[in-house]
């Protein structure tokens, strides 16, 4: 692999940019692999990357029915934070956030990680208490967050209206090292690194069945034939239920549509991420100047990647109250993704009833931030059979009543 660098840019500038190689190969599938990952979203690609990097397993295929990064990875609003409440979550999300800090260097690919800071607004007394508690929990977990006053909120975000008519700002939970990253670049960077290790990324190839023998996996049926493996990682977000059905088990997951939108681009006006969970909306500004806005998920099962328009209306209405200056902005685009919701709003990284099949799902509305950490931990689970970061996130927690309740931390879809 040719490394990207300032010199490479200069070199190519002198020869009409004709020397850039393809970032990843598009090979024909082999008949069998040591491990197969279904789903070339960020989590699937990160898993493959760490299988190779941390465990030397490189005879790996990542199989994707569409194009890589075309699922939720390319549809999210890229918020990165680790201010969760429960210890297992804090460990996993903080590992992930810390991996983002050096991801561009590790992958030799600019993922535009921007630790610009994330504020979660407290707009009710209940939220004030909740976030103070989270700040205390984070202090014990070694995650740097702070509960800040309304005046400090106004200082960080001058365009905010802290005396809103319905929900004045009473404070905020501030994580200064949270932020955003370029979502596509995360998928592309991992894909390039995986391809460089000799892994096969097979796009336009849907998995249509899972073959098993004596309770153990033997491979997958795909639109390009049968591919054998003894280790299968299912990392398909909203389609987890569909894959689970192919493999003969059920999951505690329901799939719903979550939407986001961007405004027309405007001059820089807000240099951090603001989340308003009570009114259900959040906003940041992209490097292109668009206001990136997200809100609530639909309440009913859905696989259409569209979403209901009234959610957009509700979100925008709430944000206009909090940020009056956006009231005249035009919406540029809107889109939806299918998110995989669990009952406790925490992910599942687990073995399954089928020997050799592992599942990584349930990230719901908030898994982009977890992409590197999830890959790191899930690769360990697949390679060694367990990982300290995933142990609490097993499927059995639902039967045993050991929930990792993050419904407060994940109060808004992010």
């Amino acid at each position, binding site marked *: 692999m040719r490394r990207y660098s300032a010199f490479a840019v200069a070199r190519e500038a002198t020869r009409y940019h004709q020397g850039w190689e393809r970032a990843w190969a598009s090979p024909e599938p082999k008949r069998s692999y040591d491990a197969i990952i279904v789903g070339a979203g960020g989590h699937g690609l990160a898993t493959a990357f760490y299988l190779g990097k941390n465990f030397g397993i490189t005879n790996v295929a990542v199989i994707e029915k569409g194009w890589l990064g075309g699922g939720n990875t390319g549809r999210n609003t890229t918020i990165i934070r680790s201010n969760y409440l429960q210890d297992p979550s804090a460990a996993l999300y903080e590992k992930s956030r810390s991996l983002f800090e050096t991801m561009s260097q590790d992958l030799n690919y600019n993922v535009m990680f921007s630790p610009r800071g994330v504020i979660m607004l407290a707009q009710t007394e209940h939220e004030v208490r909740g976030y103070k508690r989270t700040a205390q929990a984070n202090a014990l977990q070694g995650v740097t967050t702070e509960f800040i006053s309304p005046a400090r909120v106004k200082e960080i975000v001058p365009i905010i209206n802290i005396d809103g008519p319905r929900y004045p700002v009473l404070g905020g939970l501030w994580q200064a090292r949270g932020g955003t990253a370029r979502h596509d670049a995360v998928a592309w960077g991992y894909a390039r690194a995986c391809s460089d290790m000799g892994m096969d990324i097979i796009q336009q190839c849907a998995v249509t069945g899972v073959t098993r023998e004596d309770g153990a996996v033997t491979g997958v049926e795909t639109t390009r034939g049968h591919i054998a493996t003894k280790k299968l990682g299912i990392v398909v977000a909203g*389609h*987890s*239920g*569909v894959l689970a*059905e192919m493999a003969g088990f*059920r*999951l*505690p*997951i*329901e*799939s719903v549509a979550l939407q986001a939108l961007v405004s027309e681009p405007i001059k820089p006006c807000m240099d951090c991420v603001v989340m308003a969970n009570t009114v259900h909306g959040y906003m940041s500004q992209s490097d292109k100047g668009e206001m990136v806005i997200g809100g609530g998920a639909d*309440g*009913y*099962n*859905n*696989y*259409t990647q569209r979403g*209901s*328009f*009234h959610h957009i209306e509700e979100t925008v209405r709430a944000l206009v109250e909090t940020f009056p200056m956006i009231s005249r902005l035009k919406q540029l685009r809107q889109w939806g993704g299918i998110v995989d919701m669990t*009952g406790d709003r925490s992910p599942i990284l687990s073995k399954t009833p089928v020997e050799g099949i592992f599942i990584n799902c349930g990230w719901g509305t908030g898994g982009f931030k977890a992409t590197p950490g999830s890959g790191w931990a899930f690769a360990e689970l697949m390679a060694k059979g367990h990982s300290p970061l995933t142990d609490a996130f097993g499927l059995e927690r*639902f*039967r*045993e009543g050991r929930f990792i309740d993050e419904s407060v931390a994940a109060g808004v879809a992010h």
Partner: protein
Amino acid sequence: MLILECPCCGVMADETELAPGGEAHLRRHGPGSSDEDFEGYLFLRPNARGVHFERWRHAHGCGKWFLAARDTATMEVFATYSAQTAEPPQHVIDAIRAKRPDWSLVP
């Protein structure tokens, strides 16, 4: 926008009038049941991509619960019907079969 006909009052209600209530026809397992059954009742869902039976409440209308058969991949509504039934009635199954000949009701 999703529009469902409320079988209780006959109104064509759009989704802002309705409250979704999750999967329909769950078999309840309470105290005394096995852990597996209880887990299945509380958490495990087929989460079908395709024909899906679900509960709705006409929250900003007559206030009553009803059930719907809908395709989660196309948003097509096959039928809405009374909530006073433990399984999809024949006319609902027929309405689905008319459009999805290969579909079958898995128990």
